[in-house]
């Protein structure tokens, strides 16, 4: 019970960036501690240091007063630390028991694997968590939430004293989150130290005992969860009062003609999808992760093959064979995963913004650098992207600014965007930038653009979208207008049989 973890004077710099500067705070056993801060505040760096993935430049991690020097994750694990990252550290082609014992498979003499023991111990752990998972099930076949549970069981199996979660709910749905919270509660009751990194304030209020706020790589303060409120947290995080995120939004209330009409769309992943989108409308697309939301918009965008059904743009049937066709017709897609699908990280902001309009920034055969710089400069100004110049590689920008580069790409002066599809546009970005994104989305709508807004965060989709379509298992299960929408009604549709 007396375990305590202390960060003492931790500093870490990368070339050109002071990621962490003199971070000191202490967490004791049986407490759930949130680490909160805007993007670039240094939360991930701190977790990486804790897990031994990288080494601090100054200061150190102390457990029960003893300094820990980790040169690899192995040593951190041996010292009783487990970090559960956003992207799962599991091997899909292996089964649950092998994954739970990953890195520490019980073996007898000569290193032969003891399968009976492996299975028995796995079953024990599964039973103690009361989960309906089979030890021999391949992890790749488990639903996402259960994969996360396997991660937690892995940490539990190591008998870790300290368990850190990095945005654990990012890809979980609300119902799955409640399972997760139960487990975190169990860990707390067992006297573990739980660190919890998340952008979602409601969750933080629900499960944490204390909150450590970081800003720009510095420690701001520690707050007792019971004694604080959202307003105080946001002020501490952004250093300013941003007011109510949603109520200040200037909405568009005049819709134009029907822009996009999808009828009976059928692909390998989604079935019988029909809906309409008017110009100036923000259409929310909700549902549990894996419900087929991304697949619907990818099919509309020409990125996935369509089996049957019809798509009409401004009343005319269209057949996009590839994304280029859709872009030419005025449809834009900001994909779900910024780094994997959205940006070419090594290339400059300019290159990333002008990528879809290269045909419009060239003179004859050759690209016109001046025209390109104008287009990029416009976007940088319009969205106040923080960068000294448009030549900077996107890699060096923060998550929020990267998202703005993508928004800038699709709304540049050379683009004629009629339908803008945003797939999880606020995933992993901080509260301040989120508010900016909502504002930008409403601006689009007022400019007459039809927006499809996909989000896993119920509060967000309910407050931003004018109308919400809910999907489940690749089908549309219902539609709610904003005035009637509540988290419960949307969730009920997302989970209905």
């Amino acid at each position, binding site marked *: 019970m007396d375990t305590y973890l202390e960060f003492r004077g931790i500093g870490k710099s990368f070339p050109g960036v002071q990621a962490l500067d003199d971070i000191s705070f202490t967490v004791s056993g049986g407490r759930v501690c949130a680490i909160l801060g805007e993007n670039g505040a240094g939360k991930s760096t701190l977790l990486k240091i804790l897990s031994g993935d990288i080494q601090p430049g100054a200061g150190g991690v102390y457990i029960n007063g003893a300094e820990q020097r980790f040169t690899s994750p192995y040593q951190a694990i041996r010292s009783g630390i487990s970090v559960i990252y956003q992207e799962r550290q599991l091997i899909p*082609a292996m089964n649950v028991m092998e994954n739970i014992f990953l890195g520490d498979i019980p073996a007898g003499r000569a290193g032969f694997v003891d399968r009976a023991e492996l299975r028995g111990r796995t079953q024990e752990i599964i039973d103690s968590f009361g989960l309906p998972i089979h030890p021999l099930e391949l992890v790749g076949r488990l639903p996402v939430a259960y994969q996360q549970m396997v991660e937690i069981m892995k940490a539990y199996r190591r008998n870790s004293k300290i368990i850190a979660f990095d945005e654990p709910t990012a890809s979980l749905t609300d119902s799955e989150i409640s399972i997760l919270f139960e487990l975190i509660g169990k860990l707390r009751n067992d006297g573990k130290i739980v660190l919890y990194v998340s952008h979602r304030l409601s969750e933080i209020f629900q499960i944490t005992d204390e909150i450590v706020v970081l800003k720009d790589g510095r420690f701001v303060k520690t707050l007792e969860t019971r004694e604080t409120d959202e307003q105080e947290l946001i002020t501490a995080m952004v250093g300013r009062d941003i007011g109510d995120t949603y109520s200040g939004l200037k909405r568009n209330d005049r819709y134009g003609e029907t822009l996009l009409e999808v009828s009976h769309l059928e692909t390998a992943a989604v079935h019988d999808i029909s809906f309409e989108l008017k110009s100036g409308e923000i259409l929310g697309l909700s549902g549990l992760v894996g419900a087929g939301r991304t697949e619907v918009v990818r099919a509309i965008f020409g990125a996935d093959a369509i089996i049957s059904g019809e798509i009409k743009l401004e009343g005319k049937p269209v057949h996009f064979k590839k994304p280029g066709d859709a872009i030419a017709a005025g449809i834009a897609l900001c994909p779900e995963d910024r780094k994997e699908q959205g940006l070419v990280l090594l290339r400059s902001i300019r290159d990333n913004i002008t990528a879809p309009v290269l045909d419009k920034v060239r003179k004859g055969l050759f690209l016109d650098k001046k025209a390109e710089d104008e287009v990029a400069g416009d976007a940088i100004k319009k969205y106040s992207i923080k960068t000294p110049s448009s030549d900077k590689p996107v890699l060096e920008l923060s998550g929020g600014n990267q998202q703005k580069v993508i928004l800038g790409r699709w709304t540049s002066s050379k683009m004629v965007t009629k339908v803008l599809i945003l797939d999880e546009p606020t995933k992993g970005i901080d509260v301040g930038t989120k508010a900016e994104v909502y504002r930008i989305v409403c601006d689009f709508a007022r400019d007459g653009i039809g927006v499809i807004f996909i989000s896993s965060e119920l509060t967000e989709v309910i407050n931003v979208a004018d109308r919400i379509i809910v999907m489940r298992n690749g089908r549309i299960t219902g539609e709610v207008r904003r005035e009637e929408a509540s988290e419960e009604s949307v969730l009920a549709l997302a989970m209905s049989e």
Partner: protein
Amino acid sequence: MENMSAAKRLLRSKLFSLAAVTAVVVLIFYLIRRSYLGVDNIRGILNSMSLSGTIGVGMACLLIGGGVDLAAGAEGCFGGVMVALLISKAGAPWPVALVAVILIGAAIGAFNAFLINVLNFMGFIATIGVSSMLQGIINIITKARNISISDRGFWSIGTVAVANLFTLPFMIMAALVVVYGIILSRTRFGRTVYMCGGNRRAARLSGLNPKKISTILYINCGALASLGGAILAARMHSGSPKAVLGSELDAITAAVLGGVSFMGGAGNMGGCFIGLLLLCSFNNGLISVKLASYWTIVAQGVLLIAALIADYFNVRARARELKAAGA
């Protein structure tokens, strides 16, 4: 439990179909030429498996662990040349020479591992560079000539045979297949190899050391390649500066034919053995039906492509199955 047996069934069926293809290939060549299944020719086929097999065992482990060694052929050559030099020029007793050569191979493997794990070079391009360096060194030492071996004790490695069919080189190779097969499937180290090959970052963050595993596998591959070259030298009574070149491609082909995935993390030794059998029966068959030898070079490329195509369909089928299970 149902899933497990389903997975096993899948695996079995793949091995089975591979074995069936091998049987058909053998049958066709037999029908064209009866002597194809004569004792002498079978011994020839089994014997020819020894070189690519010995190298192949190391290569397969490496591929499963997510690496590749395109210098394996040159390493084998170097092993053959060095064993010949040690015995003929330095007068070393052959067992000493053999051990020394295995250590030399391990050292080259360690150099590969250094380039890849410390300097973070891409495996295939780094080993291409090493291969070129080794070939240079081999030709400098040998002046591009064979180095003959007169030690009859060493010759015996190549001549001893059980039942006039299973030669010692074949049996050494078969023993390696069995031992490494058990290591891969039954030991903690073996599981670790699959994990590192399957998801390197996950393995690292789970406290495993993928660089260590990769280093061991490169050293192992170098040592086995060198051994393979030395055994070939015993069979040929000389160390040749180029006889083993290109056998890394055979080794890779056999492994991929046998179900080792190029993405790492999948495959096993049983499959590799059958893949090797198919490759060698095929090559031998082409020669025994008197096709000019350059057609075997073409055929080899074609066979590798065929193996990869099979792998592609296999992966696709599995992906579809996973999808179906998820839905």
